[in-house]
């Protein structure tokens, strides 16, 4: 089988699982990000600023572990562009850790200013704040150096796409950086514009400002997306999913806040995808079980929830219409034995995947050295590839 055929076979395996069609084995989507850097014998600072080292780490992983897809082929965490521009204030990394501090580009009062002209706002508010006094001194040489690193980064992204094709690996979904991701309003409020603290306070003290922003986001950002989805031909079988959405902000909301600021808009988006019979992955960070009732009427095939903290067996009982991605915990991968990991993987595949509806994956993005032991990853990936569903 050549790599093109292998990719097509894998996409079919993922799509069958999402649509609750019985498959002869469960597909494995490796939720692996920077853990592969340590596994290849490098440290984060070496890989994150050198494309050759990062590619070496990706190839090391792909040659060692039999997986059907991988969350990141080394393009998520690269710092050459931002470092060429100067030292910023909220992303950080060292040999062992990469992270982002809670940050806020706006206050509730400046949200409309941001929406009026996001480029102007980035230029006049966000970048001066991020780069401090040095912003005013960025000269032509700095901009040129940054642009040159930016072009090299795009070239690397395209190169790694070729690597994925060579290995027959399908991409997660068409939401890539070149096309832009689908981001619900409250998620952008929490992750960038207001941050966790300001959003939590604003939902209580300034709910009208949040309402106004969310409605404007809906009209200006989401409506064109709905149109694009409605005008599309339907599922795109080059990818495992037709869209991938991240949900995190629901964790800081009570039910009435979720009903006011989140659910009506999310429902609208899901309904449009449902019209086109598309397959959607939602990475439900934290826990989603307490909100299960909202999703219980969707038909099988539309939704796959990638679970982080929810128990997958409990989730299956609560939402039998939603496919599950995940299941394998980083706790077990890091502290268990290969035998324990394989026994749990077998239970997951047999109990959740016997009639489709299950994609094997890790509950968290494998990022740090101790997120998994190499021997456990090897045992689990070999098991999932070879285990046949009865």
């Amino acid at each position, binding site marked *: 089988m050549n790599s093109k055929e292998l990719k097509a076979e894998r996409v079919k395996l993922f799509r069958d699982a999402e649509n609750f069609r019985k498959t002869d084995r469960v597909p494995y989507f490796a939720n692996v990000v920077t853990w592969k850097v340590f596994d290849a014998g490098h440290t984060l600072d070496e890989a994150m600023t050198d494309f050759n080292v990062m590619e070496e780490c990706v190839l090391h992983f792909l040659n060692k572990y039999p997986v059907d897809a991988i969350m990141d082929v080394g393009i998520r965490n690269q710092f050459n*562009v*931002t470092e060429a521009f100067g030292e*910023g204030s909220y992303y950080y990394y060292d040999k062992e850790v990469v992270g982002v501090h809670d940050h806020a580009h706006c206050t509730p009062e400046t949200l409309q200013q941001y929406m009026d002209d996001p480029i102007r706002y*980035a*230029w006049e508010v966000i970048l001066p704040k991020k780069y401090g006094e040095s912003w005013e*001194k960025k000269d032509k040489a700095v901009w040129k150096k*940054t642009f040159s690193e930016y072009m090299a*980064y795009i070239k690397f992204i395209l190169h790694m796409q070729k690597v994925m094709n060579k290995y027959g690996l399908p991409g997660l979904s068409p939401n890539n950086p*070149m096309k832009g991701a689908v981001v619900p309003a409250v998620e952008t409020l929490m992750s*960038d514009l207001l941050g966790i603290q300001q959003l939590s306070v604003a939902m209580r003290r300034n709910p009208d400002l949040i309402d106004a922003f969310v409605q404007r986001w809906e009209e200006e950002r989401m409506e064109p997306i709905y149109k694009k989805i409605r005008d599309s031909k339907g599922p795109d079988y080059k990818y495992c999913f037709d869209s991938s959405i991240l949900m995190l902000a629901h964790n800081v909301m009570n039910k009435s806040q979720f009903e006011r600021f989140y659910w009506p808009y999310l429902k609208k988006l899901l309904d449009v995808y449902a019209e086109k019979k598309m397959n959607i992955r939602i990475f439900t960070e934290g826990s989603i079980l307490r909100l299960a009732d909202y999703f219980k009427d969707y038909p099988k095939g539309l939704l796959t929830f990638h679970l982080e903290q929810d128990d997958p067996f409990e989730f299956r009982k609560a939402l039998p219409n939603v496919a599950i991605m995940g299941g394998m915990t980083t706790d077990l991968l890091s502290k268990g034995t290969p035998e324990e990991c394989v026994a749990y993987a077998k239970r997951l595949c047999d109990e959740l995947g016997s009639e489709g509806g299950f994609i094997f994956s890790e509950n968290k993005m494998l990022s740090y050295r101790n997120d998994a032991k190499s021997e456990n990853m090897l045992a689990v990936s070999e098991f999932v590839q070879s285990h046949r569903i009865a």
Partner: protein
Amino acid sequence: MKSRYTSFPEGYNRVAKDIIPWFMRPVKDMLMRLLLTILVDG
């Protein structure tokens, strides 16, 4: 000394003109928006 690129939209347009080569000018806005996204998010 204050950079000639600080103001908006003059500085922004000047950056695009000074650093984006002529053959990429037709996609200037897309390139600038992506670059800004990386600088803001990364």
